[in-house]
């Protein structure tokens, strides 16, 4: 196994990109990443995308994207793991370089979600649940996370205000990210009084429907000097699954798959949670960031809500979470989200995060998950 580094990142502004197609938004971000690294030829490519078949009536994305990226005949793979498609694409790209089979590999992600109606998008996302045994109830993803919230509130006393503080913090961070879908300052009361989606979650607890893509370039760590920019090293990668149906988990207030993936990444990296300087986590809903922050070991079980409300996860806090704005403010084009997290980690570790730049950013962690936590990816990156 070779050490692997990220040597280039690319991401365009996310949002409702009516004038652009799936291939447009992917190729734009991929070219930015290749320019950032100073490469024009890839050895291989992994593209995370959850459901182009439903969102864009287009499968076989790997061939399409390699073609339109001008990379004739390269081995390309489309990776599907629901909302963790991007995180898994990154892991597979890391494995390809680490194994020695490829040197310069692109890991990307894309989802073009606004070409279909809200009801169709909700259906497409619901296919990440157990369609037969959860879906027939009419439960939605906000509904599944709402049931985690109800369980977490009952078990630990987590409050409505604590959940709201996660959204407020992530929108504050998004104000400083020029590529975020929303540049909108919100208050605790705005969240609590926003339109109900799935009780107790309101619209401002939920990540949005987004068009977007992101890409990063990986290479062997000992090749970094051949490229333009300082590399950042991938020191830990963890991947785990959990039951597809939320109802089959004994503890609805925990995300055991995330905990397993984190344990594997921490072990490989030789790091403990307290040695992580900052993290990008999968805040598809406010309750998700709370439970994930506990599963990653940043807070004891039940303390994620009070920690968020006390500002411990804000940019100036003990463990800054989602400096990019997170899924909540930056947007959540599902297949691209896991890659965008690596973009933010890399920019922070290189000291290129502009107004969002943290003073201490030497070790960063990215956590991406699919469904109600049925797939979990954790990566740890460090300055070289």
């Amino acid at each position: 196994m070779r050490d692997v580094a990220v040597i280039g990142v690319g991401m365009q502004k996310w949002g409702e990109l009516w004038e652009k197609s799936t291939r447009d938004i992917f190729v734009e971000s991929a070219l930015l990443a290749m320019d950032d690294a100073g490469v024009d030829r890839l050895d291989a490519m992994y593209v995370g995308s959850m459901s182009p078949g439903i969102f864009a009536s287009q499968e076989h994305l790997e061939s399409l994207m390699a073609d339109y990226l001008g990379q004739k005949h390269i081995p390309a793979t489309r990776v599907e793991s629901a909302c963790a498609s991007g995180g898994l694409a990154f892991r597979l790209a890391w494995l390809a370089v680490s194994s020695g089979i490829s040197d310069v590999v692109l890991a990307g992600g894309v989802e073009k979600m606004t070409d279909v109606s809200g009801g169709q998008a909700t259906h497409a996302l619901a296919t990440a649940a157990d369609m037969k045994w959860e879906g027939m109830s009419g439960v939605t993803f906000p509904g599944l996370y709402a049931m985690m919230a109800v369980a977490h509130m009952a078990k630990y006393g987590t409050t409505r205000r604590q959940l709201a503080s996660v959204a407020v913090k992530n929108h504050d961070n998004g104000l400083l990210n020029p590529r975020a879908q929303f540049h909108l300052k919100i208050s605790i009361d705005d969240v609590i009084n926003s339109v109900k989606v799935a009780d107790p979650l309101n619209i401002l607890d939920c990540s949005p429907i987004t068009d977007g893509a992101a890409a990063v370039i990986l290479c062997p760590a000992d090749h970094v000097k051949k490229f333009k920019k300082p590399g950042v090293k991938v020191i830990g990668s963890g991947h785990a699954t959990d039951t597809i149906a939320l109802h089959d988990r004994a503890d609805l207030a925990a995300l055991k798959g995330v905990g397993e993936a984190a344990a594997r990444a921490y072990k490989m990296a030789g790091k403990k949670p307290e040695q992580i300087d900052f993290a990008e986590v999968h805040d598809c809903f406010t309750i998700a960031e709370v439970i994930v922050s506990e599963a990653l070991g940043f807070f004891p079980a039940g303390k994620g809500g009070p920690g968020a409300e006390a500002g411990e996860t804000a940019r100036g806090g003990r463990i800054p979470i989602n400096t990019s704005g997170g899924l909540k403010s930056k947007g959540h084009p599902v297949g691209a989200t896991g890659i965008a997290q690596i973009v933010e980690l890399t920019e922070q570790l290189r000291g290129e995060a502009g107004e969002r730049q943290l003073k201490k950013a030497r070790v960063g962690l990215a956590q991406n998950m699919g469904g109600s936590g049925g797939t979990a990816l954790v990566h740890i990156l460090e300055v070289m």
Partner: protein
Amino acid sequence: MPPARSWRAYPQTYRLEAARCTKCGKAFYPPRLVCPECHNRTFETFAMKRTGKVVSHTVIRTPASAFSALQPFAVGIVEMDDGPRLTVQIADVKFEELKIGLPVRLEFRRIFSEGESGVIQYGHKAVPIRQ
């Protein structure tokens, strides 16, 4: 929904058939081919009792298109007295009555009708047991 996808699940959706692992005794709904607890592959089929209690709940206010006629509606995770947990709609309930521990009984109900021909999908919904 393709007819075969509906009818091959009739034993579970119509009769609440579950499977109990012959080695460790854990019950599963729907049945499985291998027990995730002990990896045993033999099960005995049984029909679940219809009673259980709510272990978590929500009110869906923005459903997928197929359920839009019902909105808003309550959904819960119900732990059956026989052990398995299900995600089901909770019907005939005031939303403020929803709480963890609420005793419920599963009733056979219409879930939704689909397409121009209005093919009706049936299944179970949970209804509060009132003293």
